């Protein structure tokens, strides 16, 4: 076992109160709302019409290009409507409203079902694509694209991302404890698909039970090593993980394959296993429901499209006395105004916070805490000054589009300046100017 640690970043209170809660299958809802855009890239093209009957796992939206992904019905039922729906991030998108008519009747998979040892690299890419698998760590980038790097960039190392560095969240943790074998099987499949020689299973040391379960499994398995990481945020971000484990720097504006690496989240790997072995596409995911505003912190296996309000009720959430409802983790999650939104492929957690810190904002004192904590070594102090002064060329030179919005700078700012918010504003302004 390797022991490594990230140099930069922060270590917020972990708040992983749901860590010991076993994954519970969430009951079949009465209705699901399945947006056609749940991934990075073009929204899927609808394949169903109003009043059409659909089966569980049936493809209801087709990938609309190379960087896109299909979506599937997570229930057996009838399409009630195709209407726009509000997503947590504030955008609206077309969605299929499906009324559940009965118990699950599974649709035939649209990909080849073979013995796992018989699957060719192309088969694996087809499975990842047809099963609508996207990166479940948060970025929801289509996995099929990720495992099809250009030929001139051979991949030598696969990193299984079980860092789960976001505070509060435990969905990956539970998957690793309960389904280590399935995750490793899928990881091995991917390692062979991209032709990598080395495999690393990266887990932060606040999850000793997950480290232990993988240690037992990979003991003696050729080409795999468990990496115990000192808990640090945002260590699980791809670029941080590659730097910590492989000592390589993904070039600015580049992707992991540029340095011969492939990073896959454990949830994504579990979804790949379900598709390859059981023939079930990505229609469920583990969602952590937690925070001091819930009485039963839980890890639910939820069908995509389930109303978040129902999931919150099951965990005993008290929204009346809550100040914030967050979809995702406390560092990168999105705060929402209402729980009436569907669970998406990207929904790793739902947090109910009773009290939120509201610090007074002061002028920047150039203390540099943000600069030294930034995992990408951005000189945030100056970048944000350039954004505030609308000096866009300088802002770009100081890494405006390099920022991944991990939130570390705002978290440590003693002047309480919403630095990430300024950076988002800067990106938005530059993008809209360049679009003209």
């Amino acid at each position, binding site marked *: 076992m390797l022991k490594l640690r990230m140099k930069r970043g922060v270590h917020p209170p972990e708040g992983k109160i749901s860590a010991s809660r076993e994954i519970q299958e969430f009951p079949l809802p009465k209705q699901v709302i399945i947006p056609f855009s749940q991934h990075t890239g073009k929204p899927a093209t609808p394949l169903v019409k109003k009043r059409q009957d659909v089966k569980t796992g049936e493809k209801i939206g087709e990938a609309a290009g190379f960087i896109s992904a299909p979506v599937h019905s997570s229930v057996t039922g009838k399409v009630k409507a195709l209407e726009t729906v509000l997503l947590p991030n504030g955008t609206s998108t077309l969605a299929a409203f499906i009324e559940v008519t009965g118990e699950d009747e599974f649709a035939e998979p649209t990909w080849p079902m073979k013995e796992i040892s018989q699957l060719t690299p192309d088969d694996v890419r087809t499975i990842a694509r047809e099963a609508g698998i996207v990166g479940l760590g948060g970025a929801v980038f289509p996995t099929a694209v990720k495992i099809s790097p250009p030929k001139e960039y051979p991949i030598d190392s696969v990193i299984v991302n079980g860092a789960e560095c976001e505070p509060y969240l435990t969905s990956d943790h539970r998957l690793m404890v309960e389904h280590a074998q399935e995750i490793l099987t899928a990881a091995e499949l991917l390692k062979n698909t991209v032709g990598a020689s080395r495999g690393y299973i990266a887990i932060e040391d606040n999850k000793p039970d997950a480290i232990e379960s993988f240690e037992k499994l990979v003991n003696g398995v050729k080409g795999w090593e468990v990496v115990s990481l000192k808990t640090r945020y945002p260590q699980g971000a791809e670029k941080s993980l590659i730097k910590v484990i492989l000592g390589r*720097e993904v070039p600015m504006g580049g992707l992991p394959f540029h340095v011969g690496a492939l990073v896959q989240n454990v949830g994504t790997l579990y979804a790949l296993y379900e598709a390859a072995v059981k023939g079930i596409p990505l229609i469920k995911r583990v969602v952590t429901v937690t925070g001091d505003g819930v009485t039963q912190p839980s890890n639910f296996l939820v069908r995509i499209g389930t109303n978040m309000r129902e999931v919150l009720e099951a965990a005993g959430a008290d929204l009346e006395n809550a100040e*914030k409802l967050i979809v995702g983790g406390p560092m990168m999650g999105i705060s929402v105004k209402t729980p009436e939104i569907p669970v998406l492929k990207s929904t790793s957690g739902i947090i109910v916070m009773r009290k939120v*810190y509201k610090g007074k904002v002061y*002028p920047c*004192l*150039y203390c540099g805490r943000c600069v030294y904590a930034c995992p990408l070594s951005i000189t945030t102090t*100056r970048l944000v000054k350039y954004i505030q002064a609308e000096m866009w060329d300088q802002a770009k030179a100081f890494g405006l589009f390099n920022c991944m919005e991990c939130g*570390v700078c705002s978290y440590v700012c003693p002047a309480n300046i919403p630095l990430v918010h300024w950076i988002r504003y800067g990106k938005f302004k530059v993008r809209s100017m360049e679009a003209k």
Partner: protein
Amino acid sequence: MSLIVSSSPHIHDRESVPKIMLHVIIALIPAAAASIYFFGIRALWVMLVSIVTAILTEYIFLLLRKKDTSAVLDGSAFVTGLLLAMTLPPSINLSMVAIGSAVAIIIGKQVFGGFGGNVFNPALVGRAFLQAAFPIPMTTWVANKASHVDAVSVATPLGGFKFSHILTAHKDLFLGNVSGSLGETSALLLILGGLYLLARRYIDWRIPVGILTTVFIFDGILWLANSKKYPDPVFMLLAGGLMLGAWFMATDPVTSPVSPAGIWIYSAGIGILVVLIRLFGGMPEGVMYSILIMNAFVPLMDKYLRQRMLGEKK
């Protein structure tokens, strides 16, 4: 149900400007208390006048500039007032203290737009003004009560070296049995205060380390070359305002660089200037001017010496 919607992150480490200022004050308490022990109740008056004037001036200027006057409670004016007092001779006329403190806030800080906007350390701007306006009271030193010297006017260790070639014992410099300004007596207490801030990560370790190492090495070379002419490096470290400057003045976040390369240049620059002024200049002490001069280069350093980003071409 009224949920707050705001940009991520949704948690904070609870550090704040007033909290940092509070701990700077706490870190200065041992040295401030020692100054009362060494120079009597007079030292307390100097500190009180300086602090009260700083806060009042800040309040008036925030009013005049139509800014949020609650900013006066951020603690920064208190710190400026206290730091200025630490650089003053105990015998100075209290009206001069008030003038210096007002200048520190007005010229040192408010004309630059207030907290965060100033280029130079406000307390040192106040002191530089007093040095120019009242050169005699600013260089008249009373004896330290712990030294049992019965004299109306005495020399500081650096003055004694410069003008009479007398070296004060290291032990007296370390413990503070010497004359000088309020805060340049006990190196020990200043180092303890600095280490406290370091432990809380409120100051950048590279600044005191850079300054003190540079002074030690630069003076050490001169001393090795001619130990009759130049003082030993330990004397250089412990005498005068170097400890106060290195731990509490040069580390002011607003007026020190953010860029790591800049921090090393800044602190080495201060160290070199201190030795040059002390040993080759007209004045016995040069910490104030060294810091003020290097303050001027901070914006340039932060612009041109920013750290390399992850994945950026070397």
